């Protein structure tokens, strides 16, 4: 289809179908995660998810056969631009969309794709990711959760940690050591199972921000049918690495999705004021902000170029580590500057005033950005070996 026809059709459709309430700025609590337990915050949120899912536009790039929109790279870009034009909220966000979906598209069987992907696209099943363990953080491949082959199923026993929203998720995609005699990286399999299975329990972890987005997740002899393995036995690490590249792209690019992107400059001026030359009345902070603004413009340009590169059909591969590193380090600086600009107002923790400490909580939350999904140091090690080919 001619791209400009697609644009005008899309514009008209969005105008007609995107509820007015879904065109306003959103906070973290407004995200539609979907799933069995999800409670819609408004009828408009539910309606928006349904009409978008009917069109396959919750996952515009996926094939239509799996609940996607089947859009070309150019069409995806147009859809994103047109949604941005009317400030339409994303109808659905989930680890299913960001991570499991791409992994299934690449490694899943046809049957698995037809079963799991439409559920993700429609927001029916909410997924969590079972990767890290108490003894396997940066050294993820050292994971010890075991899956014992009992003939018709795997019996999974062990513990995961930092499982995002495990207490709210319906299913988990999980790395499990099924081949104990194989080497570290080749003994892992990629299993899918229901969080309501007998033997699964979760315990939220309270973080420095006061929130509990992460859980400890325990598996006590959980029975996982054998057809719920993705790829071959022992192929889990390959799938995990592929999926991590998607996670890193997502985290690297996600500052706008996960954090309110208020105008830093405006906030600083209203809190600190200007001197008699019209400059922020805090020269050191101003200088730091200047460097940050330049870096922000730079990273936005890089994301734009990277997006075009990927839409042209290229894979980022190890270079997803580059986006992850740059994006998360930048976001930490952004949050530090926001708190510095706000002064004590932004250190208010409780109550109705000053957004109930949201700025301070965002600032604290951002400290995890350079840890989750692989630390900055792990990213630099990956780049030095995979891209720069420095000796190991």
């Amino acid at each position, binding site marked *: 289809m001619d791209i400009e026809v697609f644009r005008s059709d899309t514009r008209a459709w969005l105008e007609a179908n995107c509820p007015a309430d879904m065109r306003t700025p959103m906070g973290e609590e407004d995200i539609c995660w979907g799933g069995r337990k999800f409670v819609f915050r408004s009828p408009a949120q539910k309606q928006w998810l349904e009409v978008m899912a009917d069109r396959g536009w919750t996952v515009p790039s996926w094939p239509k056969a799996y609940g996607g929109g089947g859009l070309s790279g150019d069409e995806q870009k147009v859809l994103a631009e047109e949604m941005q034009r009317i400030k339409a909220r994303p109808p659905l966000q989930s680890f299913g969309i960001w991570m499991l979906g791409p992994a299934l598209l690449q490694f899943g069987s046809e049957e698995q794709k037809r079963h799991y992907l439409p559920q993700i696209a429609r927001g029916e099943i909410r997924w969590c990711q079972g990767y890290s363990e108490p003894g396997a953080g940066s050294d993820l491949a050292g994971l010890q959760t075991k899956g014992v082959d009992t003939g018709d199923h795997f019996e999974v026993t062990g513990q995961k940690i930092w499982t995002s929203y495990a207490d709210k998720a319906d299913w988990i995609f999980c790395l499990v050591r099924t081949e104990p005699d194989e080497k570290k990286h080749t003994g892992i399999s990629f299993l899918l199972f229901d969080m309501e299975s007998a033997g699964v329990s979760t315990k939220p972890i309270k973080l420095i921000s006061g929130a509990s987005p992460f859980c400890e997740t325990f598996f006590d002899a959980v029975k996982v049918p054998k057809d719920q393995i993705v790829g071959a036995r022992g192929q889990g690490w390959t799938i995990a690495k592929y999926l991590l590249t998607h996670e890193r792209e997502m985290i690297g690019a996600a500052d706008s999705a996960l954090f309110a992107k208020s105008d830093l400059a405006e906030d600083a001026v209203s809190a600190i004021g*200007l001197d008699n030359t019209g400059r922020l009345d805090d020269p050191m902070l*101003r200088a730091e902000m200047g460097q940050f*603004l*330049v870096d922000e*413009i*730079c990273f936005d340009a890089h994301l734009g170029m*990277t997006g075009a590169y990927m839409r042209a059909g290229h894979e980022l591969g190890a270079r997803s580590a580059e986006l992850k590193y740059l994006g998360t380090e930048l976001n930490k600086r952004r949050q530090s500057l926001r708190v510095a600009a706000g002064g004590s107002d932004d250190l208010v923790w409780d109550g109705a005033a000053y957004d109930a400490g949201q700025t301070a909580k965002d600032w604290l939350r951002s400290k995890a950005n350079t840890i989750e999904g692989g630390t900055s140091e792990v990213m630099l090690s990956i*780049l030095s070996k995979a891209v720069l080919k420095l000796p190991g």
Partner: protein
Amino acid sequence: MSMELLSEDQQLIVDSAAGFLRDGHSIAAFRTLRAAGDDANGAILPELAEMGWMGIVIPEELGGVGLGYRSAGLIAEELGRNLTVSPFVSSAILAGTALVSAGGDIGCIWTPQIAAGGAVFALAVDEVAKHRPERISTTVTGASDGLKLNGRKTYVVDGAIADRLIVTAKRGDDLCLVLCDPQVAGVTRAPQMMLDHRNAATVFFEDVAISEADILAQGPAAEDVLAKTLAAGRAIGAAEQLGVAKAAAEQTYDYLRTRKQFGVLIGQFQALQHRAADLYCELAQVSSLIASALNALDEDSDEVETLTRAAKAKMARVGRQATEEGVQMHGGIGMTDEMDLGLFMKRDRALTEFLGDAGYHTEWILRQRCI
């Protein structure tokens, strides 16, 4: 390592530029020029013109090839990598942009000359040690039939070899862009050799007789032409600096892969690996920013000022990182003239100062955001 998508034409430019410069105008050639005290590299101009580079941003109807700024940036990056001495930025980019955007008869006369390499132009915009194009005490005075140009311009890159200068001056409160033949009475040029073995001249104008026809643009029109010209120069200057930085970084990565100490390759040390990888990330993102700035120039978008200034500011910081890390990671050998790192460091430093450093352009961005 680039993620920017290039058209077939652009890829051809990169390949032919890399080949041409490697064969005749490499760093070895730069060292030969330096040893001979030659800061002009006169032989290169007809070759650049022959390849169409001198007319790269000049439209075909004005005698150029009109391939645009993105393509010009790719050439500049290769010039940077090879430390090639040429009037490409001064004449093809700065004067090319100024004359094309000024329009008028006088532009039409000179643009084919620039493209053909028949004349070299230089831009005289600064009067102090830092780039401050808004501070102008050079004046155009007198009645229309007897105009005089008076003042002094500093660090005019290629000013000593230029056949014509484009000079910023004030006529009353109006900005003027004045075309000036440096051979006429009243113009004195004092060439200075800079640390990067490039020439920058101080040019004195004392009651230089000019005519109305020599005024390329005046008032708001001149402001527009100058803004466009400086934006183009910043982006292309940053692209050249990117080439310098990438060359320094690549030599450094190579060294990390081959140099042994303590019985191991030094690239095995995580302290160095992480610094090298950080540099790599910075180079990757500044590459994208510079490409975006050049695309904005080609599209004449509203983002030109912001992107070209951000590109120049960011490149100054990344260029310094690349060259300083290069010397440090090489250790003592990196301090020797025999290695190229010092040459990169000197060229990088000069390009940082050229058309404004990180502080200057960051200040503009802060002011634009009203802080």
